[in-house]
């Protein structure tokens, strides 16, 4: 449906395939089922956040509070997830509710105050971090129930549960973006906000939805992280927003709004995950890892840009 972003997607797909090929040739351990499952597992949290921020970026906004929302929702969920206290749905609802509420708060301030999203979410980033520390009194919340820990650590028929969550979320987000009126309106708002308004679209409502969805997905990421490391960490998720935004942008979402796809974002997230996984496999020292990661990110986007030209 969206020509330019589709061709962008092909570019990034090509870049991704190329990098995978190089890695498969350089280490035999890369292309094994178990390693691929590990990558999927490691990528899942960043991908969830990246899906959320993709919606936001498509409408021409940005959300820097993702990482803080991961911490708040993780701590909030963990607080209700001790063994033999509440049934599993309680921590899940608490976490998802907290994330949606924080996202809705972002949306409300952005639409009512007209302050740029960058500033608003910079503010809520700090507020969120503070809330996480207040909720947890600065200490990790541990001793969580087995059922809660299954979310991030369990597997069904050999497939890690986070990967299942990842693909369900991917399907839901893709459908939301491509098959619903709300999704269509997101592209319209990001593509030309005044024209969208003049076409009768309630721009504020679309933005409210988008930030709320982003909060919800961050909460899902927060719950997954908490369950994976079996503790609610108040300082978890710091810097996650940058990885998520990077995944979206590598995947062809334009920061000026109006374009982007979930498939692109998924590939972007996988690309980042594959690179860090394989640099560990190849035992590249951490100083070089950062350099290599940066070079590959820029390279992928350049390659993508080349593919985009008519």
């Amino acid at each position: 449906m969206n020509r330019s972003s589709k061709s962008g997607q092909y570019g990034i797909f090509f870049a991704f395939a190329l990098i995978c090929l190089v890695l498969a040739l350089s280490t035999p351990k890369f292309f094994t089922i178990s390693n691929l499952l590990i990558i999927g597992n490691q990528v899942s949290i960043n991908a969830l956040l990246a899906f959320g921020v993709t919606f936001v970026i498509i409408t021409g906004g940005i959300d820097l509070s993702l990482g803080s929302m991961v911490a708040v929702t993780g701590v909030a969920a963990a607080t209700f997830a001790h063994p033999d206290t509440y049934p599993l749905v309680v921590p899940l609802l608490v976490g998802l509710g907290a994330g949606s509420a924080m996202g809705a708060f972002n949306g409300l301030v952005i639409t009512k105050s007209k302050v740029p999203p960058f500033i608003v979410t910079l503010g809520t980033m700090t507020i969120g971090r503070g809330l996480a520390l207040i909720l947890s009194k600065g200490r990790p919340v541990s001793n969580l129930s087995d059922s809660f820990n299954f979310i991030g650590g369990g597997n069904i028929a050999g497939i890690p549960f986070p990967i299942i969550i990842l693909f369900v979320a991917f399907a839901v987000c893709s459908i939301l973006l491509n098959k619903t009126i709300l999704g269509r309106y997101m592209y319209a708002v990001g593509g030309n906000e005044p024209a969208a308004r003049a076409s009768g679209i309630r721009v504020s409502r679309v933005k409210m939805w988008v930030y709320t969805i982003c909060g919800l997905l961050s909460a899902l990421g927060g719950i997954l992280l908490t369950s994976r490391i079996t503790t609610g960490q108040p300082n978890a998720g710091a810097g996650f927003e940058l990885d998520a935004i990077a995944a979206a942008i590598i995947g062809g979402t334009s920061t000026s709004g109006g374009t982007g796809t979930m498939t692109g974002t998924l590939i972007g997230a996988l690309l980042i995950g594959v690179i860090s996984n394989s640099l560990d496999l190849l035992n590249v020292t951490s100083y070089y890892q950062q350099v290599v990661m940066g070079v590959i990110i820029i390279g992928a986007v350049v390659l993508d840009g080349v593919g985009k030209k008519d």
Partner: protein
Amino acid sequence: MKRNAIFSAFIAMAFFTGCNQSSNKESGSDAGDKLVIGATMLSMQNEFIVNVSDAMEAKAKDMGVELITVDAERSALKQVEQVESFIGQGVDAIIMNPCEVEASSPAIKLAMDAKIPIINVNSETSAKPTAFVGSDDTESARIAMKYIAEKLGGKGNVLMMHGFMGQAAQIRRDNGAKEILKANPGLKLLAEQTGEWDRAKGMSLTENWIQSYGDKINAIFAQNDEMGMGAVKALEAAGLKGKVLVVSVDAIPDALQAVKKGTLDATVFQNAKEQGGKAIETAVKAAKKEAFEKEVLIPFQLVDKGNVEKFLK
């Protein structure tokens, strides 16, 4: 316009609440003749530091001194400013939990010039303070690595997970570990990589190592418990826990639980309570111009299944 002004005030608040002071002033008490101690802590987001801070507060209450604690949020600049404001307030002594070896040093000089005793707790600065209370990080890694050497009988493949590269604790723990590795030529360092003190990162790193080295891994040394816990999770998931020794440092409650369960083989206990308590004691002595020790070193203790009960509250 007005809206914007209100909003920016709101944002500003959000930013500055970070440096709000939390004091344990007891209302109605005559604070006038009480000793006042100012404390600036590396980061109140770090569990160990929070524990030290709690111990300081408890001790201060016991001794009847007023303690003002502020959070430097890992910023040395902020820390120096906080010490300046302590000096301005005329506190009787200052306790500093330094953010950085070099960058926090100016604070020492400021306090010395103002003739206010300043005590470093937990980690060091290049400038010499009135007194130092803490433990030697190098020693903690030596203890951990010695344990590994012992358990493996001096032979085997070891992986090391670093903290944030370049931080004082990472460098010391690295030095300590490498010392022991050198002394045991049968131990081979298979790979080393940073997990940035983070549990999720430690877990991912271990997963990737398992892919690379699989059965060859005999032991993992993680420079803190968070990463060690991550390693344990990854090994458990791969069904390798029984075969790989995991040792880390700090003895946080989670790690103690894991030692008790037998999933983490050992951790090294750094005594937050002692550090905090001794810091207050030394500060009070220095403020009252009584005799005090210039260097109070709190020893580390190895915690394994045999003695873990002692450390669990």
